[in-house]
């Protein structure tokens, strides 16, 4: 089923976050995870032979309710995309500053906070 493929994409992003050493690759792993969850949310609202949830002229409301795809996940996904954008901007800003301080993007060399 297609939901399993979304979950596989989530695991690919998780692999990128946990097993890679470059900060940019970690950021891309988070991006893949976010996209997979957004995809999963949109696919939840699918209805067979459905139309877009837009009321056009000359269409009554009953037809819209009976045959449109679910619009609530679409609203959730818009908000989720904007939140993800804000987090991405935050991560990239920290990555630029970290490059300035440490000279490298490798996270194994950033260990000034010791026990």
């Amino acid at each position: 089923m297609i939901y399993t493929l979304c979950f596989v994409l989530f695991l690919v992003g998780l692999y990128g976050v946990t097993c890679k050493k470059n900060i940019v690759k970690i950021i891309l792993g988070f991006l893949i995870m976010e996209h997979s969850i957004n995809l999963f949310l949109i696919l939840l609202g699918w209805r067979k032979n459905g139309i877009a949830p837009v009321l056009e002229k000359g269409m009554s409301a009953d037809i819209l309710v009976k045959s449109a795809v679910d619009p609530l996940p679409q609203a959730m996904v818009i908000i989720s995309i904007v939140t993800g954008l804000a987090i991405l901007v935050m991560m990239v800003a920290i990555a630029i500053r970290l490059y300035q301080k440490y000279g490298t993007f490798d996270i194994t060399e950033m260990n000034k906070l010791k026990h």
Partner: protein
Amino acid sequence: MKTDKKSPGMSLIVKNTARTVMGLIFLFGIYLTLYGHISPAGGFSGGVVFACTFILMTLAFGKDVVLRFLGKTTAYILNCSAAVLFLLIACSGVFFGGNFFENVIEKMYPSANFRLFSAGFIPFYNLLIAINIGAGLFMVFIIFSVRRVVEMDGKRKLITTEFFDIKEGKIQ
């Protein structure tokens, strides 16, 4: 065609094309914002297209032209004031006897469907969100691209570049 090294930005073809197309992109952003309650799209998409206009202007003409037109401070103030106005309009529902985000204009003056001036507060929300996101994304782009980490005298510094020339890849 040789690139003129003294003037910033890209070549002449790119500049002319950008000059023609920029107005149309801005118009498309306004269309997406204002028709947000009738057709798909709305504040977020319109705002992103607004920011794309300014990014295109930065890429084609260099940062000095754009920063004279819409500086970093102006963008920050636009961003914050659009957010404050959004919250004020949302709270105004309380003063007219409703709840927080309630669409008071629609309840008081109900309007026909499919028109541009309908659906109460929603066009205002769309417009304010578009200004907010447009200014915000442009500010993010300027801060990320105009400042660079360079190696000077053996130390790494975060400086502001003089000319924004993406062909060369180094400061002039």
